[in-house]
């Protein structure tokens, strides 16, 4: 909402400087954004009057115009053919700063010769002054403009651009802002009751109003003026509309807009002679009813939309926009003026469905009050009679099915203290509320407060508390800390688990990334994730782009895309991870949202360094990270043969905790790598942290450190080629006194037979009770070998 201060000052004389007023409004909830100074750059521009208009001797289309500036008369060359003797115009002296009519750039006026005649200044168009886009003609000032006075003194103003919150439709008006300014600066507000002569035939005899949808139209008022003459509005009115960002059209339309800006009540003028049957019917649209709004667009309506109709057809889309064939035209001689109130939700609904918002719909959907209809109607009739002549019909029509008596709200001063934490006296409270137009009746313990009719946002006592706080000032509320005991903590440790995982991975050299949760069908297909097999991913019903159409069921597609993108400019090792949710559909309910961690590591093996080249990443790098991670989390993870479509068929494992598969790690499937254009070996892991959570307990019991020395034995075994390390270590570690077993060499090739391989283990034997003897260890080792031989056909190497 733009408010020119000179307009505001017609209703209130704020006792404070402009800066303070802006600051007070901002602090009270109506933020003053841009402050536009009209005429701020009008130096060396004054009001002049044409005293002679002569033809230019060397050019047919140009004129020599002499302008009286009070103290001197100067002659300029001018091309505007409409100028008349006696016109008052803005005159720019040489050196003035103006805006170029064609390019829109600022320039400094220099003295110039035009077709051989020196021009000692310039007459300005509105565009050259920066008032509007009009550049065809020289701006003509009102006849009362004082000659010789700087234009900035006469026309200059400051326009506040206010950010009005959706709860305050009353502040989408100059009077609304004036009321705020009055309360904030302690000044009275003066609004004159509009008066005019209503001499014509009683309106009831000329038009009838019927509301067929009283649930959507709580009030419909109408006035009628006949014998009007459509013309341009006077310059002062046009200037104000322009300053508020509206384009002047004609005197009738301009007045409706002016009064809307002044009172906040949208008004609509119909050409009375286009209203067939002299009847206005407020009804729901028929399904598929076609209606052409005054912007010339044909629109298909539905039954949940409200229209203003005559006996034959709709003439306006209620509260949103008028119709093309009933709008005021240059030939209009009589108008029917609507000032009505419509259901906010319905207006919002219609405007949203039709993608059509207007100054009117914006006010209606925020919920203006029906009481506003009559004062605004009267004001508009008053101004229209002044601007367009004619005769107002006697009276006005007022159909008011939605009349509601204002409900008083009981406010106890204790509630103010209870909510704000600072005490205000009943006197202070009453003073503030009264200054805002509230009616206050005091009793012993409470104040009975009736909101003024224009405040649709006040319904409960807490609303009144805010009024008190914002007018007295939020600054007056002290700073205190919560003083009651800290509530019972009921920790949801997923936050901590995520934090632990992140810190571990960062320690292993991984960089965290955050990707969009929405992804494309194409990316999902590329990653070949398991979710494709069971349930389809959740889709948005209104996706903005196909890139952001599906809720990701896996973090893989985004992290692989990120990896590929980084490989284009990154040499050597890249390690990325993301912790985030995936979305798994559940019938009839919100999706499951497990927290996942997904990591990728790739070593290009090509980074030139004096230390030698990086070794390409392989399966064991990925598995090593996962092993370290689970060790740090204190969770026992088992690795089983994996069957993940996105990973290398034989270089992957499933990670199992407590018998449940909770993740995978492995090398990327060659096809997936190709699909993402990843050309170097890459490992990927994806783990469901929500599933790990129950096992990631911090509760670990201390194990005493063994006091007796361990006996360490190294053994080299020859085993079948497809015997796994796991099979061997499972057997070895099942024996008593074996505290640790670790493979330290894997070898195949001569002299080991071709169908065999050699595995070497270091076994630690240890007792927590005593020192083991060599004989004891020899005995256990023999038992181990015996079992390995019978179960796996293992022999000792050499």
């Amino acid at each position, binding site marked *: 909402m733009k408010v020119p201060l000179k307009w505001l000052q017609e209703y209130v004389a704020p006792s404070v400087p402009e800066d303070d007023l802006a600051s007070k409004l*901002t602090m009270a909830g109506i933020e003053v954004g841009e402050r536009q100074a009209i005429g701020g750059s009008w130096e060396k521009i004054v009001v002049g009057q044409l005293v002679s208009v002569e033809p230019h001797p060397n050019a047919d289309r140009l004129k020599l115009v002499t302008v009286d500036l009070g103290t001197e008369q100067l002659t300029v060359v001018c091309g505007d053919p409409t100028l008349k003797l006696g016109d008052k115009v803005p005159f720019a002296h040489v050196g003035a700063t103006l805006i170029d009519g064609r390019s829109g750039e600022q320039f400094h006026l220099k003295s110039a010769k035009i077709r051989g005649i020196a021009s000692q200044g310039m007459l300005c168009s509105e565009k050259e002054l920066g008032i509007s886009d009009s550049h065809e003609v020289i701006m003509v000032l009102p006849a009362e403009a004082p000659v010789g006075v700087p234009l900035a003194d006469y026309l200059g103003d400051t326009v506040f651009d206010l950010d009005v919150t959706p709860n305050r439709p009353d502040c989408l008006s100059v009077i609304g802002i004036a009321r705020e300014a009055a309360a904030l600066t302690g000044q009275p507000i003066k609004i004159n009751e509009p008066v005019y002569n209503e001499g014509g035939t009683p309106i009831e005899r000329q038009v009838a109003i019927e509301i067929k949808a009283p649930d959507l139209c709580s009030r419909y008022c109408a006035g009628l003026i006949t014998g009007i003459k459509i013309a341009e509005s006077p310059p002062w009115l046009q200037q104000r509309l322009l300053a508020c960002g509206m384009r002047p059209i004609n005197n009738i339309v301009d007045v409706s807009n002016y009064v809307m800006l002044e009172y906040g009540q949208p008004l609509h003028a119909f050409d009375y002679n286009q209203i067939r049957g002299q009847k206005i019917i407020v009804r729901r649209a028929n399904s598929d009813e076609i209606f052409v709004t005054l912007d010339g667009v044909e629109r298909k309506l539905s039954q949940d939309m409200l229209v203003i109709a005559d006996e034959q057809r709709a003439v306006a889309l209620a509260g949103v926009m008028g119709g093309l064939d009933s709008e005021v035209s240059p030939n209009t001689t009589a108008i029917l003026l609507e000032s009505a109130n419509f259901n906010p*939700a319905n207006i919002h609904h219609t405007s949203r469905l039709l993608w059509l918002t207007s100054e009117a719909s914006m006010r209606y*959907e925020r919920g203006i009050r029906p009481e506003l209809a009559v004062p605004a109607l009267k004001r508009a009739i008053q101004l229209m009679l002044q601007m367009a002549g004619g005769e107002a019909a006697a009276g006005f029509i007022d159909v008011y099915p939605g009349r509601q008596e204002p409900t008083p709200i009981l406010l106890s001063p204790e509630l103010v203290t*209870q909510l704000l934490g600072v005490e205000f006296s009943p006197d202070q409270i009453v003073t503030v509320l009264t200054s805002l137009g509230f009616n206050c009746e005091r009793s012993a313990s409470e104040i009975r407060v009736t909101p003024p009719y224009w405040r649709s946002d006040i319904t409960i006592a*807490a609303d009144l508390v805010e009024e008190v706080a914002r007018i007295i000032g939020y600054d007056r509320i002290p700073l*205190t800390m919560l003083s009651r005991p*800290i509530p019972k903590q009921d920790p949801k440790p997923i936050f901590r688990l995520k934090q632990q995982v992140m810190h571990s991975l*960062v320690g292993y050299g991984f960089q965290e990334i955050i990707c969009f949760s929405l992804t494309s069908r194409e990316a999902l297909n590329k990653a070949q994730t398991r979710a494709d097999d069971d349930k389809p991913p959740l889709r948005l019903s209104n996706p*903005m782009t196909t890139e952001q159409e599906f*809720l990701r069921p896996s973090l893989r597609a985004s992290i692989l895309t990120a990896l590929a993108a980084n490989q284009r400019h990154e040499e050597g090792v890249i390690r990325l991870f993301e912790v985030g949710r995936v979305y798994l559909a559940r019938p009839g309910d919100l999706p499951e949202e497990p927290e996942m961690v997904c990591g990728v590591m790739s070593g290009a093996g090509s980074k030139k360094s004096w230390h030698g080249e990086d070794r390409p990443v392989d399966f064991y790098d990925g598995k090593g990270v996962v092993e370290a991670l689970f060790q740090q989390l204190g969770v026992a993870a088992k690795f089983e043969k994996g069957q993940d479509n996105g990973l290398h068929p034989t270089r992957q494992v499933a990670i199992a905790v407590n018998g449940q598969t909770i993740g995978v790690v492995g090398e990327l499937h060659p096809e997936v790598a190709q699909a993402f254009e990843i050309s170097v070996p890459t490992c990927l892991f994806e783990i469901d942290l929500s599933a790990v959570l129950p096992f990631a307990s911090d509760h670990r019991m201390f194990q005493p450190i063994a006091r007796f020395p361990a006996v360490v034995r190294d053994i080299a075994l020859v085993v079948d080629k497809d015997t796994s390390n796991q099979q061997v270590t499972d057997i070895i570690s099942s024996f008593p006194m074996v505290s640790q077993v670790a493979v330290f060499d894997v070898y195949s090739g001569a002299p080991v037979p071709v169908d065999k391989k050699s595995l070497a283990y270091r076994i630690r034997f240890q007792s927590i009770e005593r020192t083991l003897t060599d004989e004891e260890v020899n005995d256990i080792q023999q038992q181990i070998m015996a079992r390995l031989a019978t179960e796996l056909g293992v022999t000792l190497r050499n």
Partner: protein
Amino acid sequence: MLQQLEELKSNALQELASIADAAGLESWRVRYLGKKSALNAVLRGISCLPLNDRRAVGTLANQTKAALEDGLQQKELALREFDLAAIAGREAVDITLPGRPLPVGGIHPITRTIYEICDIFTSMGFQVVEGPEVEWDYYNFEALNIPEEHAARDTMATSWVDAETERGERHMLLRTHTTAVDPRVLETMELPIRVVTAGKVYRYEASDATHTPMFHQLDGLAVDKGITMADLKGTLYEFARRFFGEERRVRFRCDYFPFVEPGVEMAIECLVCRGAGCRLCGNSGWLEILGAGMTHPGVLERAGVDSQVYTSFAFGIGLERLPMLRHGIDDIRLFFGSDLRFLRQF
């Protein structure tokens, strides 16, 4: 005898000076200080000398021994220093070559911000909770006083999820603010409550330098007997003080959010111009940081909390803005571009 000792001493010391290695020094020691050395023979023979000579010879012999031992020790020291210097010289490396690189990881600036803010609020007795990102219309809007066709919905363009639901009229959406967690907390948690929740939120918006369809917020909620707006101001001031620094001025002004009454907006003094007005702050001198207020009684009652007994405050912070302001990041899309050249800077 005495003269012999003097000669022995001077010969020995002269010889010592020319020794250049440990082996030479050892043979010198055996020769002059060993059991079979002349000096040792003199010392052993002292008791056989005439009484008159014993004192003089004994004194001189002991002095000689001390001198030789002293010389030996110094020579040993000198030789060791010499050897060390030789080793150091041999083993010298180009210390300007870079070390063997370790992969360096890092936390995303948004995650870092979440941790930092959660730490501040947990120290004030708030605990971290989580809520769903795919949410019912009810929790995201209706429970927060934003019914269908409320004008406030226009400021939060919504992405809807295409899902059949048995619940009929309750539509599924991507939450537009983390405030949607508040009604769930009110419904399920035991009173009193102090919680914060952080996470992703979504808007139906095209990307540009200041908008992305996904971003992050942090919301806080406190419910107890006797909670006031002064407590809200104090709590938020404490947050601002710790996050932005002791000297930064803070402003509280009236603002509107449908789920609070009275509503507050907190701004801090502009980080660039410190209040003088600049491009960053739109010449206002202030940067809006968060929205807050006293939880609307309707929100409390709807979730089954007696608003006559309990009062409550709530606040919500947009998380991208904070690192953007702190580090001078001018394009929000960088956070979600996964570009290591960006992420490694934090």
